[in-house]
C-alpha cells in the first residue's frame, strides 16, 4: 500500500462507551470495538503488571489516604508506666479497643495514578468509607457476641509449671456478661486439639480486630480459664477468623500494617507500587485509543513509502507522515 492510497478506517463504534469499558477493565473497550489483538495486548499487559505489583505488595497498595499514626506506643508506654503504673493497664486496654476511626493521614497521590485501572481500584474509595465508619470497631465486652469457626493456638501453663502451645481448630462462642470487675466476655471454645476433642472455658478481656480490615484474617485473643476440668495458668487462646472477600479487598491498611509491609518488603514495596502506577498510567493510553483511535495512524510506513515532499520537510519524520485518519465515531 502506498502513502497516497486511503488507509483503512478503524470502526470505533460508540467511542464513549468504548472508553468507559476500557476504564472499567483494560482492553474491554477494544473487545467491544472488535479490535481483538489490541484488546488482548492491553488486557494482558496492564492487568498482569497491575496484578504482579499488587501481589508483591500483599494486595495492600491501594489507599487514598496514608493511614495516620494514632499514638506513639513505644514512647508513651514507658512514660505512662513510670507516671502511673496502676492506670497503665487500663490505659493500654482502652487503646487496644480503639478502632480505625482515627485521624486520617496525608493524601496518597499514587492512588490517582492507580485509579485508571478502573474496577480494580475505584472500589477502594468506598472501602475506605466503610473502613473508617464508626461501626467498624474491634469487638469489646460492650459490643456484640461472637460465634465463629476459628483456627488458632492455645497457650497455657499446667499445675506443674510446664508450658504448652497447642494448635486448635473449632468453634468459639463468646457473649458479654456481668463479671466480678464489670462487663466482660465469657464463653467456650469447642473443637479439636492435638489429642482429640477439647472444650475450653473462656473469660475476661477479648481483643478481636474490626470486621473490615486490610488483612484476610481478624486476630482474636482471649483468656482461657479451664481446659476440660483442668484449671489453666496464664491460658490464652489466640486465633484467626477469616474475613469475607468484601471485608478485606481494597481496604486501606492501618499504620502498623503498612510499617510491617515496608519492613517485610524493603525496596520491593516501592517497586510494587511503581508497577501499579505504571499500569494505571498505561491504561490512560488504552482508554484514549478506544476513544479516538491510534495516535499515528493505521500502520507504520516504511521509508520508501514516505513521499519526497515529506522527506524534504525537516519537521516531518516517517512516524508523523503516517495517516491519522481515524476519527471518533
Amino acid at each position, binding site marked *: 500500500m502506498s502513502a497516497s492510497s486511503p488507509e483503512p478506517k*478503524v470502526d470505533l463504534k460508540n467511542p464513549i462507551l468504548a472508553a468507559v469499558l476500557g476504564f472499567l477493565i483494560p482492553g474491554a473497550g477494544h473487545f467491544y470495538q472488535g*479490535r481483538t*489483538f*489490541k484488546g488482548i*495486548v*492491553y488486557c494482558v*499487559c*496492564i492487568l*498482569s*503488571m497491575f496484578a*504482579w505489583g499488587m501481589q508483591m505488595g500483599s494486595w495492600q497498595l491501594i489507599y487514598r489516604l496514608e493511614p495516620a499514626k494514632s499514638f506513639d506506643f513505644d514512647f508513651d508506654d514507658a512514660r505512662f508506666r513510670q507516671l502511673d503504673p496502676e492506670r497503665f493497664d487500663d490505659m493500654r486496654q482502652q487503646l487496644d479497643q480503639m478502632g480505625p476511626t482515627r485521624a486520617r493521614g496525608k493524601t496518597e497521590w499514587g492512588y490517582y495514578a492507580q485509579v485508571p485501572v478502573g474496577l480494580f481500584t475505584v472500589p477502594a474509595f468506598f472501602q475506605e468509607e466503610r473502613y473508617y465508619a464508626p461501626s467498624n470497631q474491634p469487638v469489646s465486652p460492650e459490643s456484640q457476641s461472637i460465634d465463629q469457626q476459628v483456627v488458632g493456638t492455645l497457650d497455657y501453663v499446667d499445675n506443674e509449671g510446664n508450658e504448652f502451645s497447642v494448635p486448635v481448630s473449632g468453634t468459639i462462642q463468646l457473649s458479654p456478661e456481668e463479671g466480678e470487675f464489670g462487663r466482660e466476655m465469657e464463653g467456650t471454645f469447642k473443637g479439636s486439639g492435638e489429642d482429640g476433642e477439647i472444650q475450653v472455658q473462656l473469660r475476661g478481656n477479648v481483643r478481636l480486630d474490626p470486621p473490615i480490615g486490610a488483612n484476610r484474617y481478624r486476630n482474636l485473643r482471649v483468656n482461657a480459664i479451664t481446659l476440660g476440668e483442668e484449671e489453666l495458668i496464664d491460658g490464652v487462646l489466640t486465633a484467626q477468623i477469616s474475613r469475607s472477600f468484601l471485608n478485606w479487598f481494597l481496604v486501606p491498611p492501618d499504620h502498623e500494617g503498612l510499617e510491617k509491609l515496608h519492613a517485610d518488603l524493603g*525496596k*520491593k514495596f516501592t*517497586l510494587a507500587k511503581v*508497577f501499579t502506577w*505504571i*499500569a494505571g498510567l*498505561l491504561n490512560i*493510553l*488504552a482508554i*484514549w*485509543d478506544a476513544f479516538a*483511535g*491510534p*495516535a*499515528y*495512524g*493505521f*500502520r*507504520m510506513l516504511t521509508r520508501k513509502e514516505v513521499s519526497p515532499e515529506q522527506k524534504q520537510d525537516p519537521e516531518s519524520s516517517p*512516524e508523523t507522515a*503516517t495517516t491519522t485518519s*481515524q476519527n471518533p465515531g
Partner: protein
Amino acid sequence: MNAWSLLAQSENILWYILPLAVGISLVYSASRYEETDSVLRRAMRLFFQITIFMFVVFSVLWVLSYRL
C-alpha cells in the same frame, strides 16, 4: 563489586525492568498504530531502546560509584 556480578544476582531488582519494558513497549506501540505487524515491530524497537538506555545509565552510575 564487579558490574556483571552485580547484575547476575537474581535478587537484583534491576531485572524487573525487563518485563516492565516489555509491557510499556507493547502498550505504548499499540496506542500508536492499529496494524498488528506495525505494533509488534515498533514495540520491539522501543523495548531495545529502553533496555539500551537503562544499560547505559547503569554503566554510567557504576563507573561513577567505582570504589565508593
